[in-house]
């Protein structure tokens, strides 16, 4: 029983990271109807920035918040420079844009910081408040993710800017008619997604270690979470992310065939299963369009 609880808690901890990635994916998906393949690389690059800041002597939390701010600005810039000109372009143009972004960011990180694996500090120490049940970093990850999610919820539910962003994503034409600058709302969405990704990257780096390919599998789990929850539902994406974390951990522990090596397969199997059985996800909305 203790093993079970232990695995569930550890699953929730990594699940929080998947939830953040899923949320970042869904935010951009809602704004521009495309999946941002480069989301993981953006998060990885942000993590490197925070590592660099710490190398230069910044304390952890200063580097943490500075990185969030830098990532936000970078996200806005990426939208303005790369994706705004692609507005209205066919799907494939966007896909190529995402792949280019992926490759550029990945090699740039390798070029600047090299592909050797680096360790990344955790700010949560080693002494867990819950004894052996869950370690200190996992506890910290869950706490930070929950705080982040609550902040985002409050922002989107109770601030005018959040309302405007939701309106711009739900119905751009009507949003323009009430005077919302839809283009800027999309850019803000990119900024927020980049900032959320940065938090996820910095939290998971002590676990998976820092290197340019660190976010590859994390992003896949993030996709699985987003698809499971439904790509149109931010709340669903968060729940999906947490579920994927828990499912992955339990399957890895209790299904003998799966083990550690086949864990990633679970994410892929989950994506395929959801897409075949319930394409709109658990909480998504079915979109019917006239052709």
């Amino acid at each position: 029983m203790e093993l079970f609880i232990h695995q569930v808690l550890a699953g929730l901890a990594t699940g929080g990271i998947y939830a953040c990635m899923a949320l970042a994916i869904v935010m951009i998906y809602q704004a521009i109807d495309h999946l941002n393949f480069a989301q993981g690389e953006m998060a990885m690059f942000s993590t490197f920035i925070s590592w660099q800041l710490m190398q230069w002597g910044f304390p952890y939390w200063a580097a943490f918040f500075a990185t969030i701010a830098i990532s936000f600005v970078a996200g806005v810039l990426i939208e303005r420079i790369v994706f705004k000109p692609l507005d209205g372009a066919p799907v494939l143009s966007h896909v190529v844009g995402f792949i280019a972004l992926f490759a550029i960011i990945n090699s740039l990180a390798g070029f600047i910081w090299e592909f050797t694996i680096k360790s990344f500090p955790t700010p949560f120490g080693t002494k867990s408040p819950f004894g052996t049940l869950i370690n200190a970093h996992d506890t910290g990850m869950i706490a930070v993710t929950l705080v982040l999610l609550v902040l985002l919820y409050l922002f989107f539910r109770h601030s005018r800017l959040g309302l405007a962003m939701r309106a711009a994503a739900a119905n751009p034409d009507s949003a323009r008619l009430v005077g919302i600058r839809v283009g800027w709302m999309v850019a803000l969405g990119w900024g927020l997604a980049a900032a959320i990704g940065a938090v996820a990257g910095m939290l998971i780096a002590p676990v998976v270690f820092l290197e340019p390919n660190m976010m590859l599998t994390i992003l896949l789990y993030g996709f699985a979470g987003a698809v499971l929850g439904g790509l149109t539902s931010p709340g669903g994406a968060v729940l999906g992310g947490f579920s994927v974390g828990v499912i992955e951990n339990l399957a890895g522990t209790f299904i003998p065939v799966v083990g550690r090596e086949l864990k990633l397969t679970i994410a892929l199997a989950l994506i395929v299963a959801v897409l075949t059985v319930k394409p709109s996800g658990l909480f998504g909305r079915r979109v019917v369009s006239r052709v």
Partner: protein
Amino acid sequence: MTSALLEVRGLCAYYGAIQALHGLDFSLAEGGVTCLLGANGAGKTTTLRALCGMIRATGNISFAGRPITGRATEDIVRLGIAHVPEGRGTFSRMTVEENLQLGAMTRSGRAAIADDMARVYGYFPRLKERQNQQAGTLSGGEQQMLAIGRALMLRPKLMLLDEPSFGLAPLIVEELFGILRALNENEAVSMLLVEQNAALALELADHAYLLETGRMVLSGSAHEIGSDENVRRAYLGY
């Protein structure tokens, strides 16, 4: 006649390569209600869309003395033109209250916005009853009221109304037009009204234009147009 709030000269509009409006001239008096009449496909909706920059348009549009041709929709809206589109364009998954909040998105001043919200609820008590309901669950009439209420939250100088009676029961339509008249009188909102239901529109309007395949064919006071037997028979169908 008071000064013109909206002055349009040689307005042409295009959907891609297809020209939909061929040089419209018209104007709208401050505080007045003007209606655009015409059959399906005459270009009434297109005219409204061209006025607020939703489609490509050429010509001269000036609003309160400022040229607005070719400007972005959100900038035109910020000048005080509220468009109530055909099909209402409400945010269906948001609550009534949120929809109204969105109408005031370009304004600042919490207290003034709260006052206006109360005023909108005064005109449309039914929206007050449903304030926390998702807009998509409202009836057609209520959604139209919400769309008009949302437009009011902008404190517009000019309201563009596209087929407000569309798909609504006669009793609701009557109620709605009563409210529109009250808004015009109490809130000093000028209106440009597009309607299929000519009799109804002419009752509310003081001035009318008749459109036919993207051209103005007739203009006059609502009374003149409504009482001209030939016009009525040929264009208005009643």
